């Protein structure tokens, strides 16, 4: 059985012979632990890969996203960073005044995707292949406005807010359609919706403004026979029923910010839990035994003839031996 089939069986709850795995990697890990990382890669190869995105028109970015200094993304948002291997923060808003909303430049260069290279990649690999991250409306708005301004905007949005969001969403839909036309297996979108203890905005506001956007992304994926994958950090229990209602296939979330057993009782078998194992404590400071117990909890809560992907993130602070412990624990389940 290929990795692609394994992942599909997990997503369809067809009792895969083992739980598929995927290691997420931040440049920090490559910088700090190149040899350990190579050994992890060899011992626990990924069943899920991300298709490289190459474009016929260069994206108008400048600087390095994960290096100290200034990075400008393709929208023109300016990130300041002081830590190698991690992402920076937007300190000055791109859009200071909503009257200038039309000046926000949509990065249409991303629509010049070299689809042939994506398809070649898919054909050359037997793993399950995901797109790059596509729709990311809430976070991109934060980058455009700076987070504190955006939260104030959301308390009483101007009409221009909705106009800009519409333009962004139209672009994301166009890009999602483009990727849906390739041979990737799944389409990915993301937005971090939770703080450590709750949703960042009210569930009602989320349902009114943002849920319809995700509905469109998921519908596009399904219309083209693709799986819909989403990532969100934080405590997002309040919107899980909504995401399931929209037909989301796989969700990567910070399970350890939530009541894992309660989530399992409510949602097992209705959605695939694409990781993760806690990166705020366990991967950096946890013991081998604590990690084994964490994996057992996730498996017991969510596995039901599938519905689980053994994912964790090797990012700033994580120890390589703990990443190994995660995958060993999954193998032992």
């Amino acid at each position, binding site marked *: 059985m290929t990795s692609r089939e394994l992942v599909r069986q997990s997503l369809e709850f067809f009792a895969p012979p083992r739980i598929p795995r995927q290691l997420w990697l931040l440049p920090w890990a490559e910088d700090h632990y190149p040899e350990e990382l190579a050994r992890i890669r060899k011992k626990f190869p990924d069943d899920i890969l991300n298709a490289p995105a190459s474009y016929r028109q260069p994206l108008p970015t400048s600087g390095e996203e994960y290096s100290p200094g200034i990075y400008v993304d393709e929208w023109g948002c300016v990130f300041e960073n002081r830590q190698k291997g991690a992402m920076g923060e937007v300190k000055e808003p791109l859009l200071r005044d909503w009257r200038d909303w039309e000046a926000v430049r949509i990065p249409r260069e991303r629509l010049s995707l070299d689809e042939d290279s994506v398809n070649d990649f898919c054909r050359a690999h037997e793993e399950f292949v995901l797109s790059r991250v596509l729709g990311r409306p809430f976070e991109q708005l934060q980058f455009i406005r700076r987070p504190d301004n955006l939260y104030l905007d959301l308390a009483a949005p101007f009409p221009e807010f909705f106009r800009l969001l519409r333009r962004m969403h139209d672009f994301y839909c166009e890009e999602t359609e483009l990727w849906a036309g390739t041979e990737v297996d799944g389409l990915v979108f993301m937005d971090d919706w939770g703080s450590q203890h709750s949703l960042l905005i009210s569930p009602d506001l989320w349902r009114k403004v943002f849920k319809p956007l995700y509905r469109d992304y998921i519908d596009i994926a399904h219309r083209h026979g693709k799986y819909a994958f989403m990532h969100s950090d934080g405590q997002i229990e309040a919107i899980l029923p909504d995401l399931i209602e929209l037909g989301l296939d796989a969700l990567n979330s910070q399970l350890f910010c939530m009541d894992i057993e309660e989530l399992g009782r409510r949602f097992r078998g209705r959605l695939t839990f694409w990781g993760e194992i806690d990166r*705020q404590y366990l991967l950096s400071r946890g013991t081998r035994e604590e990690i084994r117990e964490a994996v057992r909890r996730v498996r017991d809560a969510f596995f039901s003839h599938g519905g689980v992907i053994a994912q964790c993130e090797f990012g700033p602070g994580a120890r390589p031996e703990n990443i190994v412990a995660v995958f060993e624990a999954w193998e032992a389940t």
Partner: protein
Amino acid sequence: MLNEIQEALLKGKKTEVETLVDQALSSGLPTARILNEGLIAGMEKLGILFKNNEVFIPEVLVAARAMNAGLAKLEPYLVKEGIQPKGVVVIGTVKGDLHDIGKNLVAMMLRGAGYKIVDLGIDVPAEKFAAAAKEHQASIVGLSALLTTTMIQMKGVVEAIRAAGLRIPVVIGGAPVTREYAVEIKADGYAPDAASAVEEVGKLLGL
């Protein structure tokens, strides 16, 4: 009148709060009552709603903006009457960390609770916390970190404050931070969110 100030604040109605504070002052209500029973009481209610997931960050930010507008109206009277803040909080995000959304939220809630805030910003070295605490005669120091790689700086700040001979409490918070970690680095307090930070600071200062 004081209830109206609270209600307007909870709704984030900045202009209304300003008008009501003006009216309260004109009507002869004591400044301390307007502050404590109007603005601060409103922010206390907001803290409870936030903790119970009945309001979220946007509502807190607009309320804090209204609070600040009301405070600005009161400021000359507070100075004139010698009304002191509950305490001085030196706050900042530790060295190497540029994240400040959580820290700003905590600062707003503390200001709303009647504390004077000395915000040192982001990427703050340990020595700067200690120096600012001395300079401003801080009652308490608050540290924030978002990353597992930067939270380790908190230990150095606690040590720098003790090395400076200051016996004031240090309270920590941020996504990866836990109460166990606070105990481990000998910080005096921990708050998981902005509303809890107000409670924790009050508890540590015996208020």
